[in-house]
Structures are given as structure tokens and as C-alpha cells.
């Protein structure tokens, strides 16, 4: 294997794949990037056995072939070379030699045959969607994914095909975020998969704004996302996602409409005096006004008033302010509608007249 390439052209695919390499591996070869040179294309693949990333770039090929070298070291070396450098990479026995101007590096390699390339299995469903739309779905939902929850099926994102549309749902058991988009598939088939957190975050990083195409292929145990010059293959979480539709409140009839930015800023300020661990704030509503109140154990107090379109009177509910801020940041209309029922029930946050994004936040008991 031997090829040469411009530094910037090599840096981009390495940047795209290096993130999945764990600091400590179960298999030594997982510290490495698999490099496969074929038909004038170099493909770089990394894996942690759960998520596999690969990215490709055109190269000037001198010899086809494949090998693996430390992903982190190769990336660091290429990154540290001067802008515009020409880089020559070649296999030489058990070593991989990198040469650029007056720099010479000799890296240890492991045979490509040792690299556990994911066998994704037969594709059962395939859809196409533009990257920008999918990126938006993720931005509106992934923040609510659980982190290291013992309910392992919450440590990921539900991706659901339904009614020819695509829906993503995440919940950590205290709040839930749902985003959907219509018309991505011809099929009426309903299909749910749970993509683990790491796979979702790596995919989110690779997606670009705009209408470049993204192909999502669902197989029994994997989701494969094919972008313009990169591919993410993620194992799926084997588990049942909770019946999330049951927790989206229907009886929340107390409607408050506010300017999103005003209420977001009021919450951010009041949060300064909320308890550092519980982040509790109290929301009080009376006709025309939404009030945010925060206390902390030092008995300091914050009170913020925001003009609100509402007839609701004498309603008071406690929330974790971070959950409210996350939800408000994931809605992009200038006005936002908050639906409440009573002091012990959840809040539903959405854009007025738009049901494609819905956020549910459970209260803190007062």
C-alpha cells in the first residue's frame, strides 16, 4: 500500500473517524484506523465494536493494499504538519512510513485482517432524507437522551419510521423530546430502532447543513447511515423503548404563550440563584404574566416576570430549570406554547400550530 495526498485532504477523513476510538480498547487493533486503498480511493475506518465510522478521499495511488496504524497518532502527526504539506504514506514490512518534506515517521502496524469490520446483515428498510432535515431532527431530540442509565434502552435515540415519515424520540425518564418530519418514505411500515448514544453523537457530528443526501439503511441489528463521503454503522440497542406516546399529556388544557427568547433569558438569569444540584425553579402563572422564582439553600431569591398570553390564574409548578432551557432551545419559533395542567403534572412545550416538535418536562414536587 502506498499513496500520496495533500495534508488537508487527509486530515478531513481522519477527523471524521478518530472520535470513535476509545482511549482503552478491548482489542489492540481497535486503537488503529483501517486504511484501505483501492481504485484511487483511500478509505479510513475506525470502530469500538458498537459504532463503526468510515470516511474516504481520492488519493494518488502508487500501490493498492490495506493496513492499520494507530488512529490517534496518525491524526496527531498529520494535524501537526504544516499547512499545504504533501504527505506520502506507505507500507514497509510491519511498519508504515509517513514522509512529508523533511519529516519522516515510522509507525507500527497491525494486519488489516485483524480489524473487526462490522457485518451489518441484510437491509430490511431503506430511506433517503436530506442531511439538513435529519440534523434538525437530532438537534431537537438528542439532548434528552439518558447518560449511563441502568435502563439501558434510554441511553440512546429512538428512530421510528411511521406514516411515511420519520420520528426521533429521546427521554432520560424526567423529560422527553420528540421531533418528526413527513414524507421520507413510500412505505406505511412502522419500524422502531434504538441507536446508542455514541452512534447518534458521531452521526450528528458528521451531518452537514443543507440538502446533501443521507441514506439510512435498517437491518436487524444495525443502522447504517451513508453520507456523501462517510458511513456510520451503529449497533442497535436490543430493548423495548417505553411507550412514549402515553406520557405526552393530552389533558394539559392551561395554555400559556410567551416570547421564547424572553422566557429563555428570564430562566437563565433566575437559574443563577437556584439550588446547584436540583436546579429547581418555580413557575407561577396569572392572567398576562408568567413568573419565574428561584431560591437556594443560602436563602437568596430571584424573581423574573415575563409577559404572557394567557388567562390561566393561580397555577404554580416547580421544574428543573435546565430541562426547561434545553426544551426552549430546541424549538425554533419566536413564540412558544407551554401547556400545563396542575402543580403535579408535566409541561408540554411546542411551537404554536406546529406539532412536529414536542417536549415534555416532568415537574419537581413542590
Amino acid at each position, binding site marked *: 500500500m502506498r499513496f500520496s495526498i495533500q495534508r488537508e485532504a487527509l486530515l478531513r477523513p481522519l477527523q471524521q473517524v478518530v472520535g470513535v476510538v476509545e482511549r482503552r480498547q478491548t482489542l489492540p487493533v481497535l486503537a488503529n484506523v483501517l486504511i484501505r486503498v483501492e481504485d484511487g480511493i483511500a478509505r479510513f475506518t475506525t470502530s469500538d465494536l458498537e459504532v463503526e465510522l468510515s470516511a474516504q478521499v481520492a488519493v494518488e495511488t502508487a500501490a493498492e493494499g490495506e493496513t492499520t496504524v494507530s488512529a490517534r497518532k496518525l491524526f496527531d502527526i498529520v494535524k501537526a504538519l504544516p499547512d499545504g504539506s504533501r504527505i506520502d504514506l506507505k507500507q514497509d514490512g510491519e511498519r508504515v512510513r509517513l514522509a512529508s518534506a523533511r519529516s519522516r515517521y515510522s509507525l507500527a502496524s497491525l494486519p488489516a485482517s485483524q480489524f473487526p469490520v462490522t457485518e451489518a446483515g441484510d437491509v430490511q428498510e431503506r430511506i433517503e432524507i436530506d442531511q439538513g432535515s435529519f440534523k434538525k431532527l437530532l438537534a431537537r431530540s438528542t439532548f434528552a437522551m439518558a447518560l449511563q*442509565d441502568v435502563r439501558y434502552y434510554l441511553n440512546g435515540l429512538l428512530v421510528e419510521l411511521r406514516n411515511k415519515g420519520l420520528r426521533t424520540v429521546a427521554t432520560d*425518564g424526567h423529560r422527553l423530546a420528540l421531533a418528526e418530519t413527513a414524507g421520507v418514505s413510500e412505505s406505511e411500515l412502522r419500524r422502531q430502532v434504538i441507536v446508542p448514544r455514541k452512534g447518534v453523537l458521531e452521526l450528528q457530528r458528521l451531518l452537514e447543513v443543507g440538502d446533501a443526501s443521507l441514506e439510512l439503511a435498517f437491518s436487524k441489528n444495525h443502522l447504517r447511515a451513508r453520507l456523501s463521503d462517510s458511513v456510520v454503522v451503529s449497533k442497535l440497542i436490543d430493548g423495548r423503548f417505553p411507550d412514549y406516546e402515553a*406520557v405526552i399529556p393530552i389533558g394539559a388544557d392551561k395554555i400559556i404563550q410567551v416570547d421564547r427568547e424572553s422566557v429563555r433569558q428570564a430562566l437563565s438569569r433566575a437559574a443563577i440563584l437556584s439550588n446547584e444540584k436540583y436546579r429547581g425553579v418555580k413557575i407561577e402563572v396569572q392572567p398576562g404574566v408568567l413568573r419565574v422564582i428561584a431560591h437556594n439553600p443560602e436563602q437568596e431569591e430571584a424573581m423574573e416576570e415575563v409577559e404572557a398570553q394567557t388567562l390561566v390564574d393561580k397555577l404554580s409548578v416547580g421544574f428543573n430549570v435546565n430541562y426547561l432551557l434545553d426544551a426552549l432551545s430546541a424549538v425554533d419559533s419566536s413564540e412558544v406554547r407551554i401547556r400545563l395542567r396542575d402543580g403535579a403534572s408535566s409541561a408540554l412545550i411546542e411551537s404554536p400550530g406546529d406539532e412536529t416538535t414536542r417536549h415534555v418536562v*416532568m415537574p419537581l*414536587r*413542590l
Partner: protein
Amino acid sequence: MRKIVHIDMDAFYASVEQRDDPALRGRPVVVAWRGLRSVVCAASYEARQFGVRSAMPALRAERLCPDAVFVPPDFTRYRAVSKAVRTIMQRHTDLIEPLSLDEAYLDATHDHQGLGSGTAVARAIRASIREELALTASAGVAPNKFLAKIASDWRKPDGLFVIRPEQVLDFLEVLPAARLPGVGKVMAARLQELGIVTVGNVRALGQLALEAHFGRWGRRLHELSRGIDERAVESARPTQSISSEDTFAQDLPLAALDEPISTLAARTWAAAQVEPRIARTVVLKLKTAEFRILTRSLTPSQSPDSAAELTRIALSLRERVDLPARTLYRLAGVGLQGFSERDEWLGRQVALL
């Protein structure tokens, strides 16, 4: 200048047993559970003559001293006696820092009864312990904590040793460096390589050389060598962690630990009920048959609020153990740590699912 007293009960658990059972007096007594793998909790001075020491495997103690009487520990009783000792100390000061059931630091600089000297306070406490509890304690009196602790060991058992401020440097000059807090076997060996045997040698080396060899610890070593230790006696040191652990009768694979972990979780949960604050972090500790110790911890967004919840988390932490399935374990422990105040104003997060 502060007056610090360190009180250390003599062979505490064993002495309590001998006090409460006349048949045990004058005989070698070893406090330990019966079992192949149990360790010695305490040994009476009669047993120590045979080389029996705390934390030694009970089987070894039995070999060293076949005539010893083995008594299972009764912590409820030891705790009650410990509390009585505390009450005696409280007659003299409120600044008491218990280190365990059988030792504590006292700051006697301003004693309640106006005895005016650390030595007088230590004498009074030792006399009360002897008269009211029929037990003996050793005491050390010094201008700071580390010297007071060394001093209480100086005339043990049933002794009192005082290091006056003007005697500090002379006392340290010939004291083996290994007696300094923080100097264990490894550190003592490193010091020896530098030709350092006594605290006087440490002091002679000087701060710069010590810092060059040991970094920040070198600075601390230098301070100790000059008899400086500013640590305050902290009367209400908040609990850092509550845990329980158990060595199994035989080594077990991970999959067989459901029952022991559940039992330990229940015990830890029960012990944590006296703590008014809530614990945020759950720790699972395991020791392999090869004595490798591993810990796995989790800080869930919602702190565990029942024994069942603690058990569920502790059991699930096993999934994060990545040793081969054939690995056998000799010990497990379940702990709670990361205590924080309950929120007074806002209660708990309501769950969605």
C-alpha cells in the same frame, strides 16, 4: 499554641470482652468471627505476646496462639462503650474528632473545666475511663495532631506521654522517619536510599531537596520534620461514605454475586438511614481471588431512594466489570458516597416513565 490530646483505647474490643466476662481476664483473647477467611478485629495484650495482631487472618492467629479464646465481635456493645467514652471527653471540650470507635483527637486549648493544661485534661479523662468504665486508655499530649498521635503510642498500654512545645525538636531529632504520618513502607525505603533514617535527617536535608525529590509531599514532609502540623481538630467531620463489604466463604464468579450484593446493599441502606443527607453515588467494590481490587461507581440523575433501588444499581454495576467470565471474586462491597443536603425548598423530580 494549641493543646491537642489524642486518646486511644487499649486493645479496645478485646478489653471490653474481658471486662464483661471475668473468665476471659488474663487470658489471650482474639475478637474475630469464626470462619476460614475472617480476620482479627482485635487482640488482647496477652494474645499480642504470641504475635497476634489486628487484621491478621484468624487462622494464622489460631496457629500462633492455640490457647487463645476466640470471641465474635459485638459492635453494638462496642459502640455503646465508645459513646460513654465520648461523654467523658465532652466534659472537657466540644472539639472532639473521633477517628474510629476507639480513638479520637481533642483540642483542649480552652477546656471546659479550666484545668488549663492538656496534660491535666488527659489525666482526668484517663482516670474517668478507668473508674467509670473499668477500661484503660493511652493518651498523647502535644501542640498538634500528628505529635499527639505519636505520643499516645509512646507509653502504650495504659500510659500518658507529653511532648511539650520546647521538646518537639529534640523528640523529632531521633524519631524514626517511618513514624511520620504518610510514610509507609515504600516511602521509608525511598528515604533510606537518600540516607534518611530519623526525622532529624529529614530536617537536615532541607525543604528544597525534599521538594525536589517528593514534590508537594516534600514540603509537607519538611513541615512535619519541624513539628509543624496546622490541621484543626474537626469535631463534626461530615460522613464521606457509608459502605459494607464481605469476604465470601469461598471464591465466587460474578454471576453468583446476586445474593451477597443484595444483602450488602440492604445493610448499607440501613446504615445510611442515620445520615440526614442523601447520597448521590453508588459504588460497587470487588476483590478478585488474586486480590485485585476493582470499583465501579454510578451517579444516577435521581439519587437512589430505597434499598431496592440501591440493590438494582449495585447489581447493574456488575455489567461494567470487564474481566474474563471465569474470574473468581473473594470479596464484594456496596457503598454510598457523595452526600449532599436535601433540598429544603424543592422536593424531588417526578419521573416520567
